């Protein structure tokens, strides 16, 4: 790859959530997983905007389920992380690990 696409922090979080959920990765659990683990609130708008962007880059793929009655007869849009996405995640982790290697955060900044 000539110009490596760099993953943003939120993109990493979304990709990891999809990975964690495996077969069950559609909107509701993805959003809840991220809220539960990161303790930040997240809107569906922001979530789908990011997922659409990741799909455009080929990092995730999505497909639709059959209609579900509890959802007013609407289908779920499922996501799966693609090999390109795995590669990007791995690269991000390596970069971060390289940067973290040997870093000791000053005591004061640990806080709380």
């Amino acid at each position, binding site marked *: 790859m000539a110009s490596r696409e760099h993953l943003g922090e939120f993109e990493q979080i979304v990709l990891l959530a999809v990975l964690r959920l495996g077969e069950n990765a*559609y909107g509701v659990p993805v959003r809840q997983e991220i809220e539960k683990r990161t303790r930040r609130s997240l*809107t569906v708008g*922001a979530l*789908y905007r990011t997922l659409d962007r990741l799909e455009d880059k080929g990092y995730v793929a999505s497909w639709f389920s059959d209609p579900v009655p509890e959802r*007013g007869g*609407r*289908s779920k*849009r499922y996501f799966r992380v693609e090999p390109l996405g795995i590669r990007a995640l791995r690269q991000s982790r390596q970069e971060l690990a390289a940067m973290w290697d040997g870093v000791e955060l000053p005591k004061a900044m640990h806080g709380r």
Partner: protein
Amino acid sequence: MAAKFPRLIVLLFRLRFLRSAEFALGDLMEEWNAGTGTRRWLWRQALSMMWLGTERTHSAYPQRGNNMNLISGFWSDLRYAARTLRKNPGFAFVAVLAISLGIGVNTGIFTVLNGVALRPLPVPGAADIVSVYQTIRGLKSRNVHGAPSLFSWPEYKSYRDDNRVLSGLAAYEPFLDVTLGGAQPQQLFGQLTSCNYFDVLNEPPALGRAFSASDCAVAREGAVAVLSDNLWRTTFAADPAIVGRKIVLNRQPFTVIGVAPAGFQGTEPMASQFWAPVTMQFPLGRDIDWFEKPDMSWLVLLGRTKPGVSRSQVRADLAVIAGRIDQLTPDRKTTLQIETGRFLSMPEERKYVTAVGAVLLSAVGMVLLIACANVANLLLARAAGRQKEIAIRLSVGASRGRLIRQLLTESMLIALLGGALGSLIAVWSFEAIVGFVFSHLPREAPPVAVGVGPDIRVLGYAVLLTLITGIVFGLIPALQASRPDVNTALKQSGIGGKSSDGFRHALVGTQVAVSMMLLIAAGLLLRGLYLAQTIDPGFEMKNVAAVSFDLRGQGYDAARAGIFQRQVMDRLAALPGVDAVTEAGNTPLSDSHRGTVFSLPGHPGDYQVEFNEVSPEFFSLLGIPIVRGRNFTGNEARTGAALAIVTESTARRFWPNQDSIGKILHMEGESDMQVIGMAKDAQVSHLARSNETYLYLPAGPKQQIRMKLLVHGADAFASTATGIQAAIHSLDPGLVVDVAKLEDNLEVWRAPSRIVAILAGSLGALGMLLACIGVYGVVSYAVSRRVREIGIRMTLGADAREVKRLILRQAMWPVVIGALVGIAGCAAVSQILKSMLFGISPHDPLAFVIVPLVLLSVALLASYVPARRATKVDPMVALRYE
């Protein structure tokens, strides 16, 4: 189970995404039904999707043709268009600016026309007010004061009393000038009205009462008046005890009974200062009592329809009454014109307003046309650049309609931005135009009651104009660009087809032609104006004061007027610095003219002739020599002898190769007049026209009541004027005396041509600017498209000058053709400007040569700049260029 999922959110999703984000809606429903969050949370989620969400069309929901995507398609088209414009700020700026100038000028002019003649009268419930005018055929004669379409008092009474469709019908005499007596007499403009005038218009006085029926009961009685708020404040210092006070109008005492509300300035475009009952027509100093006359046109009718009555019912009902009136006079046939009440609604005025409005709107329409051609051209050039993109879209299945829609959205966006900016310009230009026109009107122009800004009508006009504009300049480029010749387009590397070239050239030609017409018109007018400033009218205008006063309005009869005039002339002649005084019926080059018909003994037929009544001093004071025969003597003038002095042209016309002295002129009902002298031609009647038939007659005793005075003084005008005022007031303190420089009469002639010249000039300049942007755009586009060809030519040894010449030649031919068309077009229509050209031919060679030269050189410059760029092309870059 949680509460029901809000329908509104479903609706918003449909509007925003149609069905392409159903999965997200499903997510929200699932969480809502599971009781995850509050209503507030739900709305936050839903709105985040509105704001941030993107469309992902879902194959599980088959598309319902193209219609399904109409809204979301428009939405994405709009965003796409906004994005493309943002990416080309230069193009966007030029296009929006051009359109906004075009729409701005148009809306500004329309605002003025709307204020003057289109909007209903500014009174409560104006939609129910109708104006009534009549056309009468089959009458041998009818007396007219004002216009033939007006009514007599007996006619008015029939319509008022016999109709069943109006809740009230008022009548008024529109043009009344009177003198308000007092320490400082002043001229007032007002109306004689029927006594229900204020009731019909629903404008009850702010102070005191309106007229009551008893005020109008008896002819020559009812000496009461209602003042305008403005007159009350300026002249009577807003005296709260004004009601009941006596004022003097034309030497008649009137009792003030009320003050009109502040916003009401009458129903004429000139602001009214007072109103008096129609019965006071004769006492107010008119020489004829026409109040009861059945065959006298002098009253305008305004009625208010009863609730629920339609215009056609009004027409039918009043036509019955008209038919009854017709039966009283054999052969009389009356047709009524019934319209919504507006300013300048009199048919005679309408005709003029419509003509002026049409000329103005077509001039500004031309500017908008240039702007449209310009933007269309830019769009075409851009579309040619996007040919490949468009071809790809077509080949992967986009329909042509879909593409046109997207391209039109882009042009609509430009039109809307331009329209919004243009409306701002319009508000500004409305004030500028009004201020400009009023500052250039002659001195004696009256205050107007039509100073109104934009209203809903103007807004509607601007919106409509914007939409039409968007389609006009967008449609043809969109049609051109989306032609489905996918194959050729894909093969070519970004080069537009031949036919779009031709179309672009036609557009440039149109722009040049139109701005050429505007500029030549401006050039002609400016030449005429220059001539008017420098023209020698053939008589002395400097150091001459023109003095006028209204003796009839002050109750003088002919005998007293004669005595008074003699006294005044003696006093004025004795003033320091004054060396000559003369009487004249009309001051030279004023806007009033007197004409008559005479015949020559032994010759069949009548001749129209203009004349002026003068005393003997007239000729020496104005420096007009008597070239043959003699002047009147003082005694001949005093007695009004049957003598005449003719001008050289008149003598040449009627007695070629003969001596005119001693010839006889026969006038119907007068004693025959003998010609005693011949005066040198001078432009005393129309500026730049001296070869008219014109007579000077002695200012006899019968004419004394309306004589004006010319005073020649060596001193500064201001001190002479003060002296004249004081001298006349010492004889009659109640007289309103107007003293003006004789030179000011020239203003009457120059003002219209100055106004039109500056308007046409600025529109023409605007048009030229836009046309040059167009030329520039087309040439730079052509150059950028031919970089490769130019590179090859240069590599093969063509020199820069040759390349430049090639580009210029191809760029200039549509310009030259457009210029020729423009010249021909202007030559065809310039006749309508003739009255403002002061002797310059409407085909004045100077204007027809210089203006095209200027325009062509500017166009040449506009194409030279990009052409020069072409020769700076590096051959290596050019060859690799795709």
